[in-house]
């Protein structure tokens, strides 16, 4: 197990390296540099920008720049942002990352809390009212673009009813402790629902069909024949078996969740990694773009690994080769 882990992690390194080369190449190949987007203030002397570019090494050959980047990163330094004048990328990303992690976790929690019980119930009582509504929701949830759902949610729940804040992560600048947590949760509800919408629909449908599948399988029939109660079968055998594909899905869905976060954060003006990525890529803030990519790459690769491990924890039949 430990060996397997080491081997998997070792494979990451060349992959990550390749990934950064590709992203660096792509980012550099894009026309413009961190200063071309800024020049709408004619009072600034363009010569100054030129000096800055020279200073930052942006006029060096791309491979040189890449090596420079890699060597700084190897020292554990993600460098400094260009757009956010000289601020350390670690600082800049830190807070945004946490915001996105909170939002993602919250969305995932909503997804699982809603999807698993409803999926179970639907499978246990097919053709019930709830099953029909869940199925309908499942279809519609997948057919509505999430930004649009977000806009409607803002319109209805934030503006018309005023139940939830429409933007940001906190209202009060002074809140601490419990108050702060509540404030943040309050702000996370609409974006969380928006981000979790598609996932909830997907998981619900998966859960339902998995459970149906397992319920129909031979060993459950045996268990039933042995006189086990339906509920205990459901929880002891079915749930466990049905959860395996969901874990796999979670591993893969991680990327999808982050993609969704890019858009959702934009709708709710939520200061997370997604919004930072968009500003950085449009401003050609290379250090930030690279840092985000690196971070996401590492996270997703580890996420997949984690999914694999969970997979085997839930289903002992699966072994590492």
């Amino acid at each position, binding site marked *: 197990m430990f060996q397997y882990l080491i081997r998997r992690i070792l494979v990451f390194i060349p992959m990550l390296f390749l990934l950064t080369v590709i992203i660096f190449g792509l980012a550099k190949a894009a*026309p*413009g540099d961190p200063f071309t987007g800024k020049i709408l203030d004619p009072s600034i002397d363009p010569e100054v920008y030129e000096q800055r570019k020279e*200073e930052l090494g942006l006029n060096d050959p791309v491979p040189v720049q890449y090596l420079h980047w890699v060597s700084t990163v190897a020292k554990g330094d993600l460098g400094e942002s260009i757009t956010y004048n*000289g601020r350390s990328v670690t600082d800049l990303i830190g*807070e945004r990352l946490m915001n996105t992690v909170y939002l993602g976790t919250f969305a995932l929690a909503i997804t699982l809390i809603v999807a698993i019980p409803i999926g179970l119930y639907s499978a246990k009582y097919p053709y019930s009212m709830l099953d029909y509504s869940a199925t309908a929701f499942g279809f519609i949830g997948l057919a509505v673009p999430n930004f649009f759902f977000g806009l409607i949610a803002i319109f209805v729940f934030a503006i018309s009813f005023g139940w939830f804040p*429409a*933007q940001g*992560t906190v*209202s009060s600048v002074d809140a601490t402790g419990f108050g702060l947590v509540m404030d943040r949760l309050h702000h996370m509800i609409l974006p969380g629902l928006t981000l979790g919408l598609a996932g909830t629909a997907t998981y619900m449908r998966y859960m339902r069909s998995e459970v149906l599948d397992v319920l129909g399988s031979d060993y459950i029939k045996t268990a039933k024949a042995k006189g086990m109660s339906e509920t205990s079968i459901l929880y002891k055998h079915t749930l466990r078996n049905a959860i395996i594909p969901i874990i796999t899905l979670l591993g893969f869905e991680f990327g999808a969740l982050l993609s969704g976060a890019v858009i959702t954060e934009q709708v709710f003006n939520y*200061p997370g990694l997604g919004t930072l990525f968009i500003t950085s890529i449009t401003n050609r803030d290379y250090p930030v773009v690279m840092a985000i990519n690196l971070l996401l790459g590492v996270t997703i690769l580890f996420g997949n690994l984690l999914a694999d491990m969970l997979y085997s924890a839930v289903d002992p039949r699966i072994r590492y080769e």
Partner: protein
Amino acid sequence: MRKNSSNKTALKMKFVALILMLAACGNGEDRGPTSTAGAQGEPNEGGIVVGAMETAPTGMFNPIFYEEGYDEAILRITHEGLVGQNEDLEFIPKLAKSWDMNEDQTSITFQLEEGVKWHDGEEFTAEDVVFTYQTMSDPDYVKSGGFRTEYVQDLKGYDAYNTGETDDFEGVVEDDKYTVTFNFEEPNVTPLYTAGFQIIPKHVFDDIPIADIPKSDASLKGGSIIGTGPFKLTKIVDRQQYVFERNDDYWQGKPHLDKIVYKIVDEAIMTGLLENGDIDFVADPNGVSPADYKTVKKIKDMQIIEQPEFGNQFLGFKMNHRSSSDIESRTINPDNWTVNEKIADPKVRQAIAYAVNREGIVNGLLYGKGKKTNSTIAQQFWAYSEDGVADYEYDVEKATQLLDEAGFIDKDGDGFRENPDGEKWVLNLDFPTGNKIRERSAPLIKQQLEEAGIQINMRQPKEMTAYIDGLENRDSDWDLYLLGWALSSHDPDPASLWSATAPYNYSRWNNPEADALLEKAMKAPAAFEQENRAEVYKEWQALFSEDLPALFLYVKDNLWVMSDRVEGIDPLPFTIMNNTHEWWVTR
């Protein structure tokens, strides 16, 4: 017993109120005054005013390092310069109470206000002024990300100091604690503009190496940012909220309000929050969009202040293209340019000008909230002139006639004109994304030009970063381009945009006569008199409109929104964030 039950009721009420407050999330926050003045029209003390900005500032709250308009809007409240501007754009005393210029305008001496306190209680003195300008002249300033060299490069001995040849800074000199003198290398036509930069505190930054200033708490962190303004920026929730608290020791008198709060609110829901009363004003840098005008107008208790912006949008003509070796070596030398034959004939450019329905664009895309313009100089300025300036009133027939005269005639009957040699004549039109109205105007301009028989190849819009790169360095096949400039409210001199060697002269307009005029306008000593400059700019504007390196499309109206519970506002032509210490709330 009775008391008890009423207590219970009160408790219940409180509970209900609490729930309501939670649900409304901040709607219930009391922003009214804490004490009301006795007399009618007398300012109340206390209260909070909440403003909205649609994009977050980058967070650089140091005048010498900020870059964007959003950061500038924040600094307007916290920092001040020696001079300010009034509603006629004249320079007026601010931190300096008076000044004297010498005969040839090579030096200017300021008498500073006495007893001005920084937000941390230290006294503001001439040392701070010297420090600010000295820091901006430092060899490390640009390396550390500073861009505002325009304020220092005319100072005496700047080059020597900036290259590190000398440590002796002669540009700004402290005469005594409250007197400071600016010395210029050459007679300065705009000394007050140069001396008007916001001042930073020496005692805060003195110990910090310049390279670390932009990273220091004193530039970034709420509570550590020190200015002399009426409010101090005390709390920052990055990209969401910026809280300003009253500066009790403000030198122009204690501000009436307790707090001003800026919230970052997406443009999409701005009107909703205005309706809910969650925000009181929308101001710099963009206000509300013209499309939202009617919606906002309908909200009672809100007033809209309309002011033409300092800036304009234009349709540029790529009159020349730089040579590729010039692009490579980043030089701008008109001698190496090649003429863009497609639009070289002034008649062609004029025809295009006649064919574009600028009024239609203003009425349609801007919902009438703007004005067509014929000059790059802002209309608010003394230098703006319509005398002798050609106004290309929308007239397709005139356009057709001019094109016919120039020999551009449709010979093959495909509906589009060929050039005088009978070859296909297609003009490329490029435009950037980012400004919705400008994006919408591009296809309409194409449509209008095609009505005059001009074939337009409208290319895909690019985001600004890529667009400017193309405009600057990869423009060999560019003909028509859309762009807009934000203009300074300090001085109207257009030389940095339209003189032949100016990098921002993207049209690559090369007209020696025009360049001579621009130089003359800034030539001491004649230029010391504003009338003389105005006269020259008048000539230049007329020449510009004849030669037409660009067709100015429109000047948008800035639509500032302000709740009528806020009194004492004193708008300047370029902002409403002026004299905030005099603001007060009625309820």
